[in-house]
């Protein structure tokens, strides 16, 4: 069954030119040239193209397939879209017997399928957990999107976010004046709530920590940033935000590696300028993957540690530096492992240790940890025009949450926090979605 939902609106040439992306016109030469180039530095690509046996172990493990029942949304089916082309141009067998090995020349129709289905993959990597060969379809999606970018096929939404990132250092396009206003407002809120002078420092040179939140923490998830402010206040760590980079997310991962590199460099440049000793990343899944796994490669002069706020808080709770009162979070809470935070970057036990201290009734959803299902918006698939498909991709997550009977869904990732409230509402679940630092912020004894 083919999905009939609309595809993401495509960015125009001007959008892409403003991001410094030059477009190629020769489809065949671009596709083959880029595959040839990429497989030299990503052996996974060649291995994944050549070693899949079509055993089908991944099929029922993919939330995209479970939600849409579209075979091109199975990991193997999605990978096959590129594998057919790879076989045609890069294998002797595919060149000699294309019909036998399922090889296919690239064409505008093929690219249309690529655009449709590689932008229905959440790059959640769950398939790799169950594939006997360890094939990680997210790698194939990343490669395919990079090729599509060279051919000018990028969702307008993702290109827009990347442009905001380049212009303002954050996804939402918050300018420095709006940022200052918001920080003042949140400080006032904190004073009203706690009666204490809890600060949210901005551009303070010489602070120990540069805190890099998700930009949504300043507008839609403000309890999260206020929670973080309370924590730093209680622990006595000097910290600061930088107006040059209020974004731990890195949409470059989703379509264009140079943009991912540029953002990684932007954070370290801000950290250097403010003379901080370390960077602490806020609640974002894929952003954490880029810091934890890629920054060392992407940024040559990375000179300081990057920690995740969850790691820091876990340590402080364990050491007794922070005391939490779980009765302030009396409702049943379940935890959603953001794919990139857990499977792709190893933060699995830390949030659970914190939650057991911060809430009265913590309930695991099944499956969880590295086998957890994606929220359905991973890899930046938050476009309004594809809302129908987003809800299908979020179907399994809704079923998981419903089974726990929880009233609070804790999801420490900005993309999950944007997607899950819509999913909960769509499937009729009266569940509030919060970040982990929201709950810690409520429970912390100041």
């Amino acid at each position, binding site marked *: 069954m083919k999905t009939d939902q609309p595809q993401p609106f495509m960015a125009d040439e001007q959008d892409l030119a403003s991001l410094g992306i030059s477009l190629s016109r020769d489809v065949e030469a671009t596709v083959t040239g880029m595959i040839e180039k990429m497989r030299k530095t990503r*052996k996974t690509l060649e291995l*994944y193209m050549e070693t*899949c*046996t079509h055993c089908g172990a991944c099929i029922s493990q993919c939330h995209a397939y479970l939600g849409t029942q579209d075979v091109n949304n199975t990991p193997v089916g999605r990978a096959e879209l590129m594998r057919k082309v790879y076989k045609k141009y890069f294998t002797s067998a595919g060149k000699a017997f294309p019909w036998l090995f399922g090889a296919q020349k690239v064409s505008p129709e093929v690219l249309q399928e690529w655009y449709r289905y590689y932008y229905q993959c959440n790059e959640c990597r769950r398939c790799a957990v*169950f594939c006997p060969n360890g094939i990680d379809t997210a790698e194939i999606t990343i490669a395919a999107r990079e090729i599509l970018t060279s051919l000018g096929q990028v969702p307008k939404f993702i290109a827009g976010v990347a442009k905001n990132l380049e212009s303002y250092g954050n996804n939402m396009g918050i300018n420095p004046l709006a940022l200052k206003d918001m920080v003042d407002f949140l400080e006032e809120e904190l004073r009203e709530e706690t009666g204490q002078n809890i600060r949210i420092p901005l551009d303070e040179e010489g602070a120990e920590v540069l805190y890099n939140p998700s930009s949504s923490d300043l507008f839609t998830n403000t309890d999260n940033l206020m929670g973080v402010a309370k924590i730093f206040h209680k622990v006595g760590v000097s910290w600061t935000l930088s107006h040059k980079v209020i974004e731990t997310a890195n949409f470059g991962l989703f379509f264009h590696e140079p943009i991912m590199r540029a953002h990684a460099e932007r954070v370290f440049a801000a950290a250097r300028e403010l003379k901080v000793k370390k960077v602490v990343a806020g609640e974002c899944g894929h952003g954490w993957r880029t810091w934890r796994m*890629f920054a060392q490669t992407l940024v040559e002069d990375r000179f300081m540690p990057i920690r995740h706020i969850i790691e820091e808080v876990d340590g402080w709770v364990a050491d007794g530096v922070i005391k939490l009162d779980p009765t302030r979070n009396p409702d049943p809470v379940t935890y959603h492992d953001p794919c990139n935070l857990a499977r792709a970057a*190893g933060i699995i036990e830390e949030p659970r240790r914190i939650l057991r201290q911060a809430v009265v009734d913590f309930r695991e959803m099944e499956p969880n940890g590295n086998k957890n299902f994606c929220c359905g918006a991973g890899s930046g698939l938050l476009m309004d025009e594809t809302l129908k498909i987003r809800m299908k991709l979020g179907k399994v997550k809704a079923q998981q949450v419903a089974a726990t009977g929880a009233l609070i869904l804790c999801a420490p990732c900005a993309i999950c926090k944007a997607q899950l409230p819509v999913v909960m509402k769509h499937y009729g679940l009266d569940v509030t979605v919060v970040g982990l630092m929201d709950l810690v912020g409520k429970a912390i004894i100041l």
Partner: protein
Amino acid sequence: MTLLRYWLQVIVSISVIVFIFGIIWKIARWTALGQVLPVTMFPAPKNRVQALVRVIWESLSFRPMWSAGREAWLAAWGFHLVLALLLLGHLVGISQEGRQFMAWGLSVAASEEMSARMGMALGAALTLWVLYLTLRRLVIPSLRQVSNWEDYAVLVLLLGITVSGDIMRLKGGVDLGEVRMFVAELFKLRVVPVPDNLWFKVHLTLISLLLIWFPLGKLLHSCGIFFTRWLINRPSPREVMSK
């Protein structure tokens, strides 16, 4: 004329060369290619020894498939187990000419008899397993949709090999001494006559085809699995970021 007379020897020789050099070339290429950005999956092994142990365990046990579903695991793991036992049986049986069980105190005749019976049983088991793999590929709708002709061709080829082997045994078998001589001479690059047994010739021809197929298609997963599993199990120590 000589070529026509020795056509099977020629095919076998070519297939062995394609197989060996094809595999070596692929492994060398995969080794040489880089992987700039790590794709480690978590929870990850803490060091390279742990990673190596996990790669070997996962590759031999198909543990990820076990988590995906017991039926799929049994279909895949059982097939590979029977295949491995059969290959081992061929290796030992041919090299010892069926007398390997003499080490257990059996007479020559009894050892040969047992060798033949075990070969027959494993051959039949593999035939059934290949049939099952084919059937599930045809019956499960999503699996059928993601299958291509190569998937079926490999199964048909395997079926041809197992069935021809089974028939050969049912018809009295082949002289293992002759087979041993043939194989030994083949690796010395000498042309010798193939044992004069029609079903053995069919069996050998199909095996040659499989050997040629091996480095060209999906059967490469047997080598690739160690690379792919290593890549997602490669240790990624946290202290790298905390220096």
